[in-house]
């Protein structure tokens, strides 16, 4: 069965610090998708990234970067120079290539303090 673990329940950092959110997954599939989503305190869901397992290149988007390590089954998310607006719950997720067996991690609540 597929599983996603986000071991960090809550993280607090001070503005401008870098922070890494961990995501470890389990799957028997050789090809799959990984995702990150953000949910700010206002409650809406924001899609951040989808990565397929063929592509192990790290991805950077502004202050956000993702480190995909197939060897350790991890897909970690780093925010550089964090800002108060980054405060949110972040969810990591995994699906097979057909969009089935889609599982979310429990989320990590990030608080960025001014």
């Amino acid at each position, binding site marked *: 069965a597929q599983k996603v673990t986000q071991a960090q329940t809550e993280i607090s950092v001070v503005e401008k610090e870098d922070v890494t959110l961990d995501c470890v997954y389990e799957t028997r599939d050789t090809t799959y998708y990984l995702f990150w*989503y953000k*949910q700010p305190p206002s*409650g*809406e*869901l*924001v*899609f951040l*990234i*989808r*990565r*397929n397992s063929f*592509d192990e290149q790290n*991805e950077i988007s502004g202050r956000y970067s993702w480190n995909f390590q197939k060897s350790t089954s991890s897909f970690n998310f780093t925010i550089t120079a964090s800002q108060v607006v980054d405060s949110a*719950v972040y*969810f990591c*997720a995994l*699906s097979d290539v*057909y*969009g*089935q067996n*889609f599982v*979310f991690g*429990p*989320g990590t609540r990030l608080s960025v303090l001014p």
Partner: protein
Amino acid sequence: DTAVSQTPKYLVTQMGNDKSIKCEQNLGHDTMYWYKQDSKKFLKIMFSYNNKELIINETVPNRFSPKSPDKAHLNLHINSLELGDSAVYFCASSQDRAEWRPSTDTQYFGPGTRLTVL
């Protein structure tokens, strides 16, 4: 203009009733989704649907059924509502294609519908 809209925003109803939540996207996307977030904030995808295929999360009870009158709409019908159905339901859409997709394919979410079953 709102990209993905849901109605109603709040829905309070009695156990045993049948209800629907509507979702519309004006992005011209091919694929739409329904997600459920329960009271403990756990997220689950319920369905993904494009004009060719409906993918159902096998854990979703058959009381839940998506209905798509056209590509821009994916409504969620729930029969015989139960207390455990109380949750926030999010609709989303993305420009998916049948062939292998690039590494990022953004999903756009609606604002959510908070369903309370009494």
